[in-house]
């Protein structure tokens, strides 16, 4: 009998955290995106996901470089600007048993990629869609993005005259089935939301305020560490309990009122009530709370909206159990005699 590895070293499938790492980050030290990459590593490790079962997608920009910095053993595709959703949509059909994690930015999603973002949401493709939202274009050195707040002043750009795009609102009105927002500085919440988003069978939009320490981190700026810390209003405390047989979990919350959200695969998201009770299955309440947050200058975080039961994209296509990309010629090419009857149709 082999000696069981210490639970501190390996996860439920016997992998170490190193098995989930990526290449060293080339982003700026202190960038919010790096802490998000670390939480993706932690979440996948803690969930016991086989890295080979995860596929990473991204578009163009600082955020979109980050899939290289986690899950080295996972396939990844860094596509063109704003059009990661279409790549992922097509790839979804190859093997529906895979988990998809897309990482985008506010420029990649809310500007050039708005169309594809809304449509991947509308189609409910099973994918965790993370927006690393910092309000600026970092890689081109600090221009305003579409999520920059009106009135934001940046060094070489002047003052932003336009209203910002709210990615969670856009997701909600496009009938997203999972909408969440977090702040890169809140590691635990980010991690638990990543787990819930991965477990969700459908599109999981996770908008994470992720400060750009180089170009947009002034104290009064909406996307800065200081402002976000001071203005964060969590809707609830959140814990993700994966569906695992024969393992007893301690209730992550010792006291207080909790609300449980059961996911498609049987895992559970536990939300602990904070100031007031919040029902994340009520779209109107979600929109109301977000509108109120905009007015009052709050950064609302947590699981904003969740809808269970809507089929995901590939559920609509009557696909076989076996992954399509493992089908062979014999299974894909119709028999010769079928062509004879087809030819007869055109005579």
């Amino acid at each position, binding site marked *: 009998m082999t000696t069981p590895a210490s639970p501190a070293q390996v996860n439920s499938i016997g992998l170490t955290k190193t098995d989930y790492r990526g290449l060293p980050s080339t982003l700026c030290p202190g960038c919010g995106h790096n802490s998000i990459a670390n939480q993706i590593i932690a979440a996948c490790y803690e969930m016991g996901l086989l890295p080979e079962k995860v596929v990473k997608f991204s578009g163009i920009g600082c955020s979109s470089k980050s899939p290289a910095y986690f899950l080295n053993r996972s396939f990844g595709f860094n596509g063109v600007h704003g*059009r990661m959703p279409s790549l992922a*949509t*097509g790839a979804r059909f190859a*093997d529906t048993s895979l988990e998809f994690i897309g990482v985008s930015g506010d420029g990649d999603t809310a500007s050039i990629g708005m169309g594809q973002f809304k449509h991947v949401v509308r189609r409910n493709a099973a994918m965790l869609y993370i927006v690393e939202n910092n309000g600026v274009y970092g890689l081109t050195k600090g221009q305003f993005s579409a999520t920059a707040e009106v009135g934001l002043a940046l060094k070489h750009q002047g003052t932003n005259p336009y209203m910002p795009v709210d990615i969670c609102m856009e997701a909600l009105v496009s009938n997203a089935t999972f909408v969440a927002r977090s702040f890169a500085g809140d590691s635990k919440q980010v991690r638990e939301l990543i787990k819930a988003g991965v477990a969700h069978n459908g599109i999981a939009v996770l908008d994470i305020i992720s400060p750009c320490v180089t170009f947009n981190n002034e104290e009064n700026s909406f996307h800065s560490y200081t402002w976000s810390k001071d203005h964060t209003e969590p809707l609830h405390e959140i814990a993700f309990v994966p569906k695992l047989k024969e393992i007893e979990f301690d209730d992550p919350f010792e006291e207080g009122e909790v609300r449980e959200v059961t996911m498609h695969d049987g895992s559970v998201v536990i939300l602990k009530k904070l100031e007031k009770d919040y029902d994340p299955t009520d779209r109107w309440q979600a929109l109301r709370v977000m509108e109120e947050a905009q007015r009052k200058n709050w950064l609302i975080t947590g699981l904003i909206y969740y809808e269970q039961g809507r089929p995901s994209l590939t559920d609509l296509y009557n696909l076989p159990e076996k992954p399509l990309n*493992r089908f062979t010629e014999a299974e894909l*090419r119709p028999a010769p005699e079928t062509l004879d009857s087809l*030819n007869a149709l*055109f005579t």
Partner: protein
Amino acid sequence: MSTQKIVNDFAISIATVNGSGSQTANSTLLRAFFKMGIPASGKNLFPSNIQGLPTWYLIRVSKDGFTARKDVSEIGVAINPATFMQDLQAVPPGGAFFYADDIRLPIGRSDISLYPMPVKAISREADIPANLKEYVANMVYVGVLAHMLGIPESVIHESVSYQFKGKEKATEVNMIVVRAAMQWAAENLTKTDPFAVEPMDKTKGLLMTDGNTAAALGAIYGGLQFAAWYPITPSSSLAETLNQYLPKLRKTADGKNTYAVLQAEDELAAIGMAIGAGWAGLRSMTATAGPGLSLMTEYAGLAYFAEVPVVVWDIQRSGPSTGLPTRTAQGDLTMVNFLSHGDTQHVILLPGDPKECFEFGWQAFDLAERLQAPIFVLSDLDLGMNQWMSKPFEYPNRPMDRGKVLWEEDLEKLNGIWARYKDVDGDGIPYRTVPGNLHPAAAWFARGAGHDETSRYSEDPQVWESNLLRIKKKYETAKQYLPAPVIDESGQEIGLIAYGSVTPAVEEARVLLASQSGVRTDFLRLRALPCTQEVHDFVQRHQRLYFVEANRDGQLRQLASIAMPGEAHKFRSACHTDGLPLTARWVANTILAQEEK
């Protein structure tokens, strides 16, 4: 005015109003000729409009088997008052003009046979449901022409039944009108024109269909697994045909689909989805036309550079810009050849008839997966949407080529040692793995940014250049896999080179040139780019090469000049684009004019 009988050799131009149901009537006539064994073709000159604008349908019957558009239609059928005078003037002396008798405009021609038809009266009096009368009124000219040209009622019946896929009720409603019109013509018209049809046996074993249908079926037999598309004329019917036949042909034993077709939000997404699916190991395609292709440009470059198999059908229409959406052209060739920024050259297939659309439909997937590259197939509106006679579709004559894909057991044998972009075999084509491969060494990171052999990000100058040169090598490697040109040669000085839908006009022009002007020509029909050695050799063997194409600038000649700069002084253009299919007469005259210089 009737002189010698002209049998099975004339063209009919039918002028109707778009959206009036004339398509059924026109298709009925065309298929009737085909079913009589007479070579025939049908070309729809339709407006970019749902209802109300003028539309013409050109039918050519030719005992000699010529199917190109004719410059002049000896028989005119005028149902549309808006174009009546134009249609009347278009009939050549000695021709015949059938027209709806409720159009009261001055005729003023005595050099043609005139046949007024009581279109409204016949359909009004026919014993059919009132709500259908408007739709079947066009069957009046079918009946009148059938009687006057000598098409048996039984053949019309067969042909109408074909249009309605054997549905008896719909067939009968239409046949009531046809019979009434035939009877009226027998009782009221005296034939004064020379045109007639007689049965032949020249269509036996042939199909009559369109290139888009053939392309879709070819893709299905090629094992198509994923298609994403966005509606655009003239390519939409290709994707719609996929939707029509996939459910019948591609289910597993337990009724599951081995395919998925998705209508995307635009062409940017359609190509993105197709590339995502191709990257993930599916036989994947999209179909579009020029404007859509412009939108797909950036992603085409990614597929080229990240080396993702994907098939893109371009059903060309007149451009630039919106251009003439419902008219044909071969104007996308240069653009597609280089589609993308940076150094890019794509492999292009050029089908010349429906049978080849079917063939290239499945071959394109083999090529895409073999070369790990986007493969473009250029058809056009004329080939894609019009009715062509064609040899039957042939079942693929070789096994699928899935290319260099490593699965778990392959990586096991390699002890997990491999590199995504390493040229192991010296043909420029590396090995790939696809998502879902669970071997711990399977994964790699695809990107449009500079990368080394292991697919890691790299800005190293040497790495960049050697990678681009390796990709270029694939373009050379491709030549051995491409369909060879079709050459008809008898040692002449003049060689003609053309591709795709202009082929029937070129073939007929060669006969005209030889028989009327004594100018003999050889002909190379190109079926793929890049040009192979056979093309170079053909060019070398000739003194003067005419590139016949339906565009303004002679794009094929431009590309050939780049490929064969030393021979370019021999190249001449016969290019023309007015939105209509080229005619043999125009091709012959254009070549003659240059020969006489």
